[in-house]
């Protein structure tokens, strides 16, 4: 069922046009690059809001805002787009974070000129690919976006990052490519398990196939490994701290906050959606890896003496929670995981971007180079603390609702794992508060040059993020309304239903008379 208006295509075309325009700006106008980029990202955001308003949470069809066109019929590939609640939320989050990151990156390329144009053009093109990867409903098209995304990120890290950028960019690329190659094998093999033909890669033609279990397991593995690298899960996570520490903070935000979500999104959409039996088969191992990620990431974060590496390790811990929630396979844990993807995106953005404000002022990412900065920059300290509170999932903020649901929703099925995962609560308090203490408290240092507190531009960077923490903490209903049907659909395809409460309330009232 096609809608008349190609919303999703437009969400890719606008930033792509913007990217080309920014890259092609004449030298005389090169200093306008970031303003133009910001403008295009804001238009995209407005259009995304427009698209979101067309979305009906109550709809019975799996995908909405769909577009299907033939692309390479001889290979069965279609240009097919569409979103469910999870994909739409992720696209909306990308569309919000991109202008925030552009604004945060305002002075990232101080030399301006050609390099600055490229920098912002790459960010816009990344936005287009991110929309594409979440909106693709053709497995091959998904794969194309999945790999295409790597290109702008590779250049964003490799050309604009810090001292170790070359190493980090190559490492990122090779890990991703390796995962992608394994997935490609599965993608093609999957096609031959399906109805084939000119639309053989469409999701709808590949869902609910009657595959034999061994085949399913192999195909599942191909997808899962790619997503585990992307997510990133222990033990294939080591590219992330290097990439995030070497990249500019805005790139790190888009990389960890948005791009990595393709991994967890893919687990829901492809691993669970296409191979339910294989997913159930692998669940014990996946949950074990998720729990290891939670604890291991937290340990590494506690031990980090580099702001950027510390924040990326917290993400490994949080991704562990997301994967745990996905594979717990209950409606509440699933909804928790799906919303955690959104909350984590905003939280990571807050942590990376505010840390970057400190790093810019101090000229170092080493935590031991700080101390006593609350006196120097009280407002930055305030927003850093709020972002940190979101990082440790303080009740009242959005990340709490999600983390809490993952633990609560999984407890009835995997008690042991839920109990171990809750240790993450204590560990997150340790890494966040210890970081805050080392950066912000203590005797006031004497600085060679005075630094300003939060500037107006920086206020515009943090305001939407803090607003999202609070809004999603107290009124997450719109988000849940969007993701609930998608989560329930995946679980019903997998044929799993929630464990019943041990003391069902209605039954006891019935027996009371």
């Amino acid at each position, binding site marked *: 069922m096609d809608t008349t208006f190609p919303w999703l295509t437009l969400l890719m075309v606008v930033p792509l046009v913007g990217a080309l325009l920014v890259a092609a700006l004449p030298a005389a106008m090169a200093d306008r690059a970031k303003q133009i980029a910001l403008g295009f990202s804001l238009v995209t955001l407005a259009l995304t809001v427009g698209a979101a308003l067309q979305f009906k949470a109550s709809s019975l069809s799996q995908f909405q805002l769909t577009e299907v066109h033939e692309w390479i019929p001889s290979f069965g590939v279609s240009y097919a787009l569409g979103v469910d609640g999870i994909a739409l939320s992720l696209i909306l989050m990308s569309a919000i974070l991109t202008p925030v990151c552009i604004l945060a990156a305002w002075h990232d390329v101080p030399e301006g000129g050609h390099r600055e144009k490229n920098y912002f053009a790459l960010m816009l093109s990344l936005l287009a690919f991110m929309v594409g990867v979440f909106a693709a409903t053709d497995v091959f098209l998904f794969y194309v976006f999945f790999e295409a995304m790597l290109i702008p990120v590779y250049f964003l890290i490799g050309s604009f990052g810090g001292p170790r950028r070359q190493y980090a960019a190559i490492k990122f690329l090779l890990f991703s490519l*390796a995962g992608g190659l394994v997935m490609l094998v599965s993608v093609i093999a999957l096609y031959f398990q399906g109805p084939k033909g000119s639309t053989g890669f469409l999701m709808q033609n590949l869902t609910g196939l009657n595959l034999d279990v061994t085949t399913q397991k192999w195909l599942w593995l191909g997808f899962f490994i790619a997503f585990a690298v992307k997510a990133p899960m222990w033990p294939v996570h080591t590219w992330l701290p290097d990439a995030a520490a070497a990249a500019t903070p805005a790139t790190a935000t888009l990389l960890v906050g948005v791009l990595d979500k393709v991994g967890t999104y893919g687990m829901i959409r492809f691993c669970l959606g296409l191979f339910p039996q294989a997913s159930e088969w692998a669940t014990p191992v996946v949950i074990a890896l998720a729990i290891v990620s939670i604890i291991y990431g937290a340990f*590494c974060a506690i031990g980090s003496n580099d702001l950027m590496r510390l924040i990326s390790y917290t993400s490994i811990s949080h991704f562990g929670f997301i994967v745990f929630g996905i594979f717990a396979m209950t409606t*509440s844990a699933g909804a928790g995981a799906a919303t955690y993807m959104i909350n984590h995106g905003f939280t990571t953005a807050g942590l990376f971007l505010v840390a970057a404000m400190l790093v810019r002022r101090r000229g170092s990412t080493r935590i031991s180079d700080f101390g006593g900065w609350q006196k120097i920059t009280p407002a930055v300290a305030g927003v850093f603390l709020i972002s940190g509170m979101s990082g440790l999932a303080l009740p009242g903020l959005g990340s709490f609702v999600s983390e809490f649901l993952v633990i609560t929703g999984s407890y009835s099925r995997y008690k042991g794992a839920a109990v171990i995962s809750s240790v993450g609560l204590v560990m997150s308090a340790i890494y966040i508060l210890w970081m805050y203490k080392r950066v*912000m408290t203590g005797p*006031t240092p004497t600085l060679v040059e005075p630094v300003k507190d939060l500037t107006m531009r920086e206020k515009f960077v943090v305001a939407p993020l803090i607003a999202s923490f609070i809004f999603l903490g107290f009124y*997450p209903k719109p988000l849940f309304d969007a993701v*609930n049907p998608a989560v329930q659909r995946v679980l019903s395809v997998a044929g799993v239903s929630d464990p019943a409460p041990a003391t069902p309330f209605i039954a006891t009232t019935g027996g009371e008379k």
Partner: protein
Amino acid sequence: MSSLALQVAQAAAAESGPVTLPGWLLVALPLAGAVLLLLGGRKTDSFGPGLATGLSWASFGLGVVALIQTLGAAADARFTHQVLWNWIPAGSFQLNAGVLMDPLSLSFVMLITFVGSLIHVYSLGYMSQDPDKRRFFAYLNLFIAAMLTLVLADSYVLLFVGWEGVGLASYLLIGFWYKNPTYATAANKAFIVNRVGDMGLSLAIAALFATFGAVDFATVNAGAEHASTTALTIIGLLLLVAACGKSAQFPLQSWLGDAMAGPTPVSALIHAATMVTAGVYLVVRSHHIFEGAPNAQLAVAIVGAITLTYGAIVGCAKDDIKKALAASTMSQIGYMMLAAGLGPVGYAFAIFHLITHGFFKAGMFLGAGSVMHGMNDQVDMRRFGDLAKYMKITWITFGLGWLAILGVPPFSGFWSKDKIIEAAFIGEGWRPWVFGTTALVGAGVTAFYMSRLFFMTFHGKARWTDEPKQHPHESPLTMTVPMMILAVGSAALGLILGPTNIFTTWLEPVTGHHEHGEPVLPIPILMIATLALVAAGAFLAWIRYGAADVPTTAPAGNALTRAARQDLYQDDFNEWVLRRPGAALTESVEWTDHHGVDGAFEGLATLTRESADRLRTIQNGFARSYALTMLAGVVAIFGALWVIN
């Protein structure tokens, strides 16, 4: 109609009850104050503290209205439940946010807003010279809002929001003077130890959901009698872990002493009168759970008994006036916890003692603040003495609090603490003897350490330091008036609410009616024994610290004294058993990450490159070798899954 059906009806009626004013306003007013003061910046410096104080009093005013409206209803209709919005609709997990105003929550509302507002007023004087006064009042308002959320919540999850909110406010206020690294560490310690408790609360809520399919009080309470004992025991023990964290009960009590790093009004409000009692609230609020789980209930009583002894022992050895008061707080909350663990016979007394303690302990903390104010922030009691002459109001108000905590009739503590001692002697088998004796002996020890504190501070010879030169003086009226009001409460509150049974009757709709059993010893004997022990404790303290000279440096003391000075080595235990192994583990995980996990990838890359070198098939080795490494990793994972299968 069965009680179950009644509760179902209560749960179903979304907007019901005698209170007509919107309950969320109580939270919203101080919250608005906090936000305004924090966002408003220096522009609000001039009027901010006053505004914050006014908003706190406004919440109190609303609380009074709610109280009057509730009192106007029949006893069994004193529940107001206001559903606010559909909060977390996540698959099978469905939760509304709502306000519950019943006798229990309103008792807390009164305590929090009244004592809280008095402490706002006191702080106007105490913090008048602090350049960051505005931030202080913003945090105080934030605390009031969070604490009211905690007690007005209609579900465990909304309670958790307030629970962590007060933890945040406590963290911010302990570390208020953040330039001192010790204070910042104390703030972190408080938050992190509390997080251990939060782990318990999170898992308790998870277990509640697994058991009842819901986490609001109405559904849980209604379903509790049908749940299995095992499930209820697990939930009860997890809730107890939460309570231990927040209420500084053994073994999670180590943070409270360090929390005295915060400004003294904070110690009075948060770390004596209100926040630290939240654990008692949680246990009493969950009494349906504990009644179905006798073992969990027993655990509550045991924790209370241990902590009341622990705090009392520590209190005897501390020379820092605030730390001595903190140890006393821990011990008194131990009494409340013990009472809450006794079951229906103890709930009302637990809350009653909580309220009277809120008055007399807050009053004494404010008195300690007044002493510090007059003595250049000195906290060492060995450097006090003879202050009664110079600080008459502080002496008298503190003295009333002292009489109250000792349980001297007719002051407040007599009516609340002695009831707990009586209740502890009720029961069968070994329990009344163990719990009763502990509570009884604890009263004697309490009398000793509180009298020691009182005499060392206000009586005996002056032992003030010369550097800086001390000029003890009485504090301004903004500080002394709140102290006087709290002193009146310390003196009279118990007499008004105790013998008349007003308070126990008022709480009955929540805690249930309970016919008092007979203690294993006759009540007059218990009362005489208690008073005798109290008199003995106070007399001993007078001999050693009032009549005799107190050395300005602490004598070496015996092994127990030395242990008590070190909080019975709790910190050393934590250091050696938790922190050091934790740090070592962190280091080894980090090392593993670098050399093991990443090292494996790096190593494989190097190995591939070198073998490639040897085979003279070098291309541009680096990228390729990585790809090969990755392939090896992939094969390894395949293999692992294959094996598991």
